[in-house]
């Protein structure tokens, strides 16, 4: 006897994905064909297991080249912001283009496409994060912090801080120190 079957590849593939992810007890959501959102943080070990389980069915986890390049842009920016000795005198756009071997226009478009923000905004966000860290962990004055972060003046830093967070540096400092007081009382 012979029987004939016809396959619905979409259903089959999604079913395999579901079964394997459930097997590993991973919370997930299938977004579309070939795209799965993992709704929890995976340990390295679990991620490895996932790759191995998938491999048996001919499923490979693809790393997207665009995403990798964007990550490199982010890393380079963080390097500039957090190690302020480096590349201070070069324009960021020139630095990124030279370091990554792509035109700034290309990097800039790609970055916006993947991250929902621009390179310029990302740099500001990182600088303000660094300023927050310095405010909380050092005794540097705001003037010194502005100088460290290569702002032309303390007013410029304050304005950008306020524009980015909606609050002033001193309000920020006051809120975080009050939070710490409460945390200490509760301990």
């Amino acid at each position: 006897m012979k029987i004939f079957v016809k396959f619905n590849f979409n259903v089959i593939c999604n079913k395999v994905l579901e079964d394997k992810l459930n097997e590993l007890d991973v919370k997930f959501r299938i977004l579309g064909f070939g795209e799965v959102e993992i709704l929890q943080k995976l340990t390295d070990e679990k991620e490895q297991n996932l790759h191995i389980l998938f491999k048996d069915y001919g499923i490979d986890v693809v790393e997207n080249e665009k995403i990798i390049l964007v990550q490199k842009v982010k890393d380079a920016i963080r390097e500039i912001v957090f190690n302020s000795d480096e590349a201070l005198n070069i324009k960021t756009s020139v630095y990124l283009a030279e370091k990554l071997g792509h035109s700034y226009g290309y990097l800039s478009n790609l970055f916006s496409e993947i991250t929902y923000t621009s390179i310029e905004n990302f740099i500001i966000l990182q600088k303000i994060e660094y300023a927050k860290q310095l405010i909380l962990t050092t005794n540097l004055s705001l003037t010194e912090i502005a100088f460290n972060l290569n702002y032309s003046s303390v007013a410029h830093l304050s304005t950008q801080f306020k524009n980015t967070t909606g609050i002033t540096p001193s309000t920020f400092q006051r809120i975080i120190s009050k939070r710490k007081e409460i945390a200490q009382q509760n301990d």
Partner: protein
Amino acid sequence: MHIVLADDDEDDRLFFTDAFDELKMDTKVSTYNDGVELMKYLNQEDALLPNVLFLDLNMPKKSGLECLKEIKNNKRMANIAIAIYSTSASEEDIEETFVLGANIYIKKPSDFKALKKVLSEVISINWQYHTNSLNKDNFLLRIQ
């Protein structure tokens, strides 16, 4: 991204979900009518916790402030980014909620266009914190 709103005003809830529909940002939005309903959901062991929780301050039965305190005292929920979504913009309210652990304070915008702009700003900044391993303890954002 999973978004939750707790607000007792039906118009405000509609306004909110409509804005997200129009933003097309790949978000799933759920709404609750008051603090009791919200906490009942969050307290379920297998509840899918939101990436951002929008909390109205003035709600019957259980206020936004009470929810905020409960959430921040619960280890399982402590990582949720909390956006206070209120008609009040008094400096005391703002500072108090920040001190209690809120991350974002939004004064409810009066028109739809402004609301869309505010929500997309919140989601994209939260996304930056989420994807760039920034220190969430230092995440404070006030939008008026």
